[in-house]
């Protein structure tokens, strides 16, 4: 297991290095510089500004510097946002994104598990149909469509929540709901399939025949055993929640990294785009790695990477 984890961590850094290199060279291919539109700069001034950002050096030197900086946790300085270091920008904006992301994951997973479990227990009844319908809606409707609709009804029409604001918990409800739909649908669907399987297994029959109440059978045996595989989809789900949060943050004007990313794209702020790309990738790979390791720890039948032998 340790060997497996170490190998995965090595891959993580290798992947990040490749992503950083690709991003760097792609950004160099872009036409124009962030100073293209600033006509007021005389050629001399432009030269000074370029020297300040190290843009007068050959591309290869810039690349070495950039990668070197990465190892020291330096993602460069933003062109647009008052020359702030990108790391600092990310640091300031991480909290709101993390908050709504985590809330959405928690809400989505918990209600997804409940919905899936109920559907499986009441299999082939109208409850099951309704639950399946809800999970299909959650899976299918894009988070930004849902966000727009929620914003219109719950905020604009009925004034239950603020339209676009970021101060207290109230303001995080709508973005959380918009983002939670996808994990909810995903988990519910997965959970139902797993639980239907488990409910028809021998040990459930045994538990029932021993005279356990339905409630006990479900909570003590069925639920626990169905939960293990659900862990596997948490990684991919976190990825889609982060994706969704980019535009959902925009809709609700939340000062998070997603909103920052979109903003830096529209303003050609290369260092910020690069920094955020690498940061996003890092987060995503890390989440998937943690989930994989967790899964190996929870379920002893699965020891990834060495063919089932420990």
């Amino acid at each position: 297991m340790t060997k497996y984890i170490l190998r995965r961590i090595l891959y993580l850094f290798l992947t990040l290095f490749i992503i950083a290199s690709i991003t760097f060279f792609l950004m160099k291919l872009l036409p124009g510089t962030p100073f293209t539109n600033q006509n007021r700069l005389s050629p001399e001034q432009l030269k000074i500004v370029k020297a300040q950002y190290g843009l007068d050096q050959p591309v290869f030197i810039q690349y070495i510097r950039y990668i070197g900086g990465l190892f020291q946790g330096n993602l460069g300085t933003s062109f647009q946002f008052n020359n702030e270091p990108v790391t600092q920008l990310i640091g300031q904006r991480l909290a709101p994104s993390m908050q709504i992301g985590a809330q959405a994951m928690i809400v989505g997973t918990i209600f997804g598990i409940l919905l899936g479990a109920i559907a499986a227990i009441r299999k082939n009844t109208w409850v099951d149909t309704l639950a399946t319908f809800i999970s299909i809606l959650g899976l299918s409707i894009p988070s930004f469509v849902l966000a727009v609709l929620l914003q219109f009804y719950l905020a604009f029409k009925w004034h239950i929540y603020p339209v676009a604001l970021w101060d207290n918990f109230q303001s995080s409800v709508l973005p959380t709901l918009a983002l939670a739909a996808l994990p909810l649908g995903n988990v519910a669907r997965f959970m139902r399939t797993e639980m239907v399987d488990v409910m028809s297994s021998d040990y459930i029959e045994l538990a029932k025949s021993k005279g356990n109440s339905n409630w006990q059978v479900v909570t003590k045996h069925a639920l626990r055993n169905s939960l293990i595989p659900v862990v596997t989809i948490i990684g991919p789900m976190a990825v889609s929640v982060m994706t969704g949060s980019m535009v959902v943050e925009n809709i609700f004007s939340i000062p998070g990294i997603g909103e920052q990313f979109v903003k830096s794209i529209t303003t050609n702020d290369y260092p910020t785009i690069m920094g955020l790309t690498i940061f996003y990738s890092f987060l995503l790979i890390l989440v998937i790695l943690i989930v994989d390791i967790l899964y190996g720890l929870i379920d002893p039948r699965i020891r990834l990477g060495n063919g089932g032998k420990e």
Partner: protein
Amino acid sequence: MEQVPKIPKEKFKLLNKQDNEASESLGTPSLTYLQDVRRRLFSNKVATACLIILGLIVLISIFAPAVAPHNPNAQKVEYSNLPPKLGNLNIPGFNGMQDMGGKEVDAYKQVGAPKGTYYILGTDYLGRDLLSRIIYGTRLSLIVAVLATLVDLLIGIPYGIVSGWKGGRVDTFLQRIVEIVSSIPNLIVVILMMIILKPGLTSIIIAIALTGWVTMARLIRAQTFQLKEQEYVLAARTLGESSTKIASKHLIPNLSSTIIIQTMFTIPNAIFFEAFLSFIGIGIPAPNASLGTLLSDGQKAFRFLPYQMWAPAIILSLIMIATNLLGDGLRDAFDPQSSD
């Protein structure tokens, strides 16, 4: 013991041989695999309904120039932001009335539109017919989705087959690439590609296809691994069939169900990415509409003109739901064991 009465001879009768055969023959003709799939698919009401809905949407998109009542990009500024109106029918929400300062006003009268003028879904801020824009927008979104999926297939299937067929070192190498590509978040690749390429249809398709093929390649590889152990493949190899011929004659037909099912999940994904990109403003450039740009425009104006947001939101959701449900139906139809 009771005596068994004697049975008269005439009660016995020689049976016709054919009668016997008839009773043993199967009542229904045996179905081929595809017929069986079709039967299972059409017995699934939800999937059938989705198939019909999608079929209609596709037909409307194909015949957009004939179906759309107006030119989607023609501006008529004097008719801007008109609410939906359906002929002279007085259906609430479709009667051309608009809430202005707490009073219901006939917006069409206000701009002095002649009597016969009406826009079923209203107009946008430049006086463009919203229905026509939605029809053309759907068409554009579907074109992006279908082409991106095709490119997906063109990369993913050969990649997966080669990886699975060759195995060994080639497979390890190809799988490393897959691992790295799949560990970069899709959206980031798509956004980076969109920044570098000029905004437009081709760039979106390239950007989506570049990330989308990975899942297909993985599935195909896993299936190929199983298939190549089969006797008929061994037989073909023993007979000296070339690898390309085995791939096209034996592997791809047997992979077709995987391919079809995965395609049904790739298409909504592509539609989502296109809408997403257009929504944040780096997708389809103006004046062309896609569902994403329409939704984005609608969101900006929804305080006073909510109808501009509804139509694209509903169509986009409808397409996503229908493709997902149809994908489920197809999976159950191709592989009855997957459902319970």
